[in-house]
């Protein structure tokens, strides 16, 4: 079956190349049949790559160790369920996954393209297919997942033990698919520019895909944090690893984009700015893929170190230069239609939000490239890691949360200063009250006090908006509170869906601030029967059973956790040694409550029977994981299509026109 997969890969490359040429040539020469054929080629590309993907899956399940990729990333002992993970455990499979995901989403985007984008859809298709050609050519010529070993081996090397975790079933595919599909909104904007439109034609498609991809990346990042929290065994969830940053930066740029696109949608402003933003997000996504596939910076994510680096670097340069060139070529066609009414308006707030977000993206990028600069110009080996990003991005993020509390209270066009002050009264007092309460309770860390105060500000301003809106509906339409609330949200989905997402962001902020400033850590070695007290908890180490498997030894530990002298829970953290990889993987045991997590992970098993434990009490981390579903829910509301309430203009006006005659 591997031969079938390889054949389909080559057919896919031919198809993508054909689709590119047919779409571009058809558009240039005004040949609709050719354009149509190019578009259909992009649809059948999905079929070819699906067959290719399935045949690699089949090779994994059959443990076909004549394939180099299968032999390197699986073995006979691996349960079949991990085929899903093994598939993208290395470069070759990841590339196949990325190519397939991009083809499927591109086909969907082209198929569902709104009418306003249709005149330039051929250009959009051509751009997406050019990106496909790149991935398929890299696979075909440099990293073929169907490459064979000179002779089959009896058993494979097995899967990287760090990957055998539930979080890994979704985190890498969500991030890879999310990063690559930033191409889609970019292709809509660029296609529209090449076709000489450069106005508002692309923004509905751009916004829908932008918001969807934003949520996909956010979910991927959250799941990655959850994976790190439960498996990396040091008790945190985010440490500004170069590859984390690589996925974080495009997501931040996309966050700016999904806000600023609303200004164009509602007011016809920021046309050029939106194109710049989506190109920046695309460039950062390419940078992220470059870092992940053989970048120069060491990272825990360097699973597939390889020689692909320079190809991706070239692709990155190309992907930044071409949109830039087209942007300047079409510069004069993008003048914004509307003018700004007031500096105190939602439009202006969105711009400040954009600049702060880009500031975070820039500071993060600066941190990842600074070691290179320092090596070149000062001949010094300098590291830029966690403390730098915390200190530089922390204040910017606090400023963003502040803006999240004030921005929603500003109307479009021109705010009335007095009514703004009135609107801020309630959220502002909630924030001040929260901060005072915290200080009285003994919380003195300025960052934490301000952070929690701002969380209160945002929550109060959102809830206040909902209450006022519902009351206003009751006054105007006589709706009951529940009906009024639902109708309020349905009447302006992008806005109120966005508020739900904002609440999810507040939840994440709670977890981050709580863990960063009030997490308690204790490293201790215990003999069976010994116990240790951390915060309000006392943990007794009961025993460890060692279970030997063919490829690993599992040390299953039992601990009892007491609070106030009462047995709270019995927990089973685990540590597994994998001789083939000469590494240990851990699985933390976590008792999670909305107030705090009790987290324990065994860090070593000593000869004398003692076990080293890392124990943490992490406040409010629970809220981070709950934020995920809330955020998805908010995104669904924001993207839910509005029902067309307006009749066709002509039929509306006809009787009136008759009367005017």
């Amino acid at each position, binding site marked *: 079956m591997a031969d079938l997969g390889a054949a*389909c890969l080559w057919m896919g490359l031919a198809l993508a190349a054909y689709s590119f040429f047919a779409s571009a040539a058809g558009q240039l020469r005004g040949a*609709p049949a050719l354009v149509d054929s190019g578009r*259909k080629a992009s649809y059948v590309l999905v*079929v070819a790559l699906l067959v290719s993907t399935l045949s690699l899956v089949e090779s994994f399940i059959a443990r076909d160790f004549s394939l180099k990729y299968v032999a390197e990333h699986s073995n006979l002992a691996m349960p079949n369920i991990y085929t899903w993970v093994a598939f993208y455990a290395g470069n070759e499979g990841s590339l196949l996954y990325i190519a397939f995901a991009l083809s499927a989403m591109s086909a969907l985007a082209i198929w569902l393209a709104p*009418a306003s984008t249709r005149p330039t859809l051929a250009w959009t298709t051509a751009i997406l297919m050019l990106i496909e050609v790149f991935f398929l050519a890299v696979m075909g010529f440099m990293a073929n997942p169907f490459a064979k070993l000179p002779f089959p081996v009896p058993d494979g090397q097995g899967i990287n033990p760090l990957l055998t975790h539930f979080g890994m079933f979704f985190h890498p595919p969500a991030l890879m698919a999310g990063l690559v599909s930033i191409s889609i909104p970019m292709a809509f904007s660029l296609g529209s520019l090449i076709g000489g439109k450069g*106005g508002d034609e692309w*923004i509905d498609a751009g916004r829908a895909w932008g918001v969807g991809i934003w949520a996909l990346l956010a979910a991927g990042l959250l799941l990655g944090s959850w994976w790190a929290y439960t498996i990396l065994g040091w008790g945190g969830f985010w440490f500004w690893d170069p590859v984390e940053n690589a996925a974080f930066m495009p997501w931040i740029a996309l966050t700016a984009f999904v806000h600023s696109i609303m200004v164009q949608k509602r007011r016809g402003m920021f046309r050029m700015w939106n194109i710049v933003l989506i190109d920046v997000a695309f460039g950062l996504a390419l940078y992220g893929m470059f870092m992940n596939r053989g970048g120069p910076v060491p990272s825990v994510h360097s699973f597939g170190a390889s020689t692909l680096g320079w190809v991706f670097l070239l692709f990155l340069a190309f992907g930044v230069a071409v949109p830039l060139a087209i942007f300047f070529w079409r510069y004069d066609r993008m003048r914004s239609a509307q003018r700004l009414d007031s500096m105190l308006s939602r439009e202006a707030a969105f711009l400040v939000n954009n600049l702060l977000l880009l500031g975070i993206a820039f500071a993060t990028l600066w941190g990842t490239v600074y070691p290179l600069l320092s090596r070149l110009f000062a001949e010094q080996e300098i590291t830029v890691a966690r403390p730098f990003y915390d200190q530089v991005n922390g204040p910017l993020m606090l400023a963003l949360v502040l803006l999240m509390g004030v921005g929603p209270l500003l109307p479009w*066009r021109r705010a009335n200063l007095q009514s703004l002050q009135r*609107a801020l009264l309630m959220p502002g007092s909630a924030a001040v009250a929260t901060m005072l309460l915290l200080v009285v309770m003994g919380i003195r860390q300025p960052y934490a006090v301000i952070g929690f105060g701002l969380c209160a500000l945002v929550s109060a301003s959102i809830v206040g908006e909902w209450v006022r809106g519902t009351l206003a509906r009751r006054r105007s339409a006589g709706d009951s509170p529940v009906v009024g609330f639902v109708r309020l949200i349905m009447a302006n989905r992008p806005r109120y869906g966005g508020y739900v997402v904002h609440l999810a962001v507040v939840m994440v902020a709670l977890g981050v601030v709580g863990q960063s400033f009030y997490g308690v850590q204790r490293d201790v070695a215990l003999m069976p029967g010994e116990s240790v007290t951390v915060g309000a908890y006392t943990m007794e180490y009961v025993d460890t059973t060692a279970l030997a498997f063919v490829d690993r030894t599992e040390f299953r530990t039992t601990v009892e956790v007491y609070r106030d002298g009462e047995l709270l829970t019995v927990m089973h953290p685990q540590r597994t040694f994998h001789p083939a990889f000469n590494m240990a993987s851990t699985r933390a045991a976590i008792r999670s409550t909305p107030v705090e997590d009790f987290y324990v992970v065994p860090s070593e098993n000593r000869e004398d029977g003692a076990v080293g434990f890392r124990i943490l009490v992490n406040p409010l981390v629970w809220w981070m994981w709950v934020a995920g579903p809330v955020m998805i829910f908010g995104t669904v509301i924001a993207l839910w299509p509005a029902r067309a309430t307006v009749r066709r203009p002509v039929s509306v006006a006809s009787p009136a026109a008759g009367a005017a005659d």
Partner: protein
Amino acid sequence: MPLVLAIAVALLIVGVVAWPLLVRRRHPAAEQAAHDAPPADVGSLESVYEAIRTLQMEHSLGRISDADFREQLHEYRRQAAVILRDADRKAGEARDE
């Protein structure tokens, strides 16, 4: 077996891709219509109505002063009316041809 499947996929691909080139379009007009830019959402009647609804909501929340509200409402109503008139004129021209 893989060979048969590979040939099947190849035939499917060639068939789907070649079809539009071989079959003459029965509706060239429809194809042409797709090339005439339909109005973008921004600046359409629907988006102006949306702006008016948002304006009414923001006014009812007391975020916009009465003077601003009247001025902006007037402006949006005029925009909507111009869109309706233009659509009407276009329809009239189409009838006359």
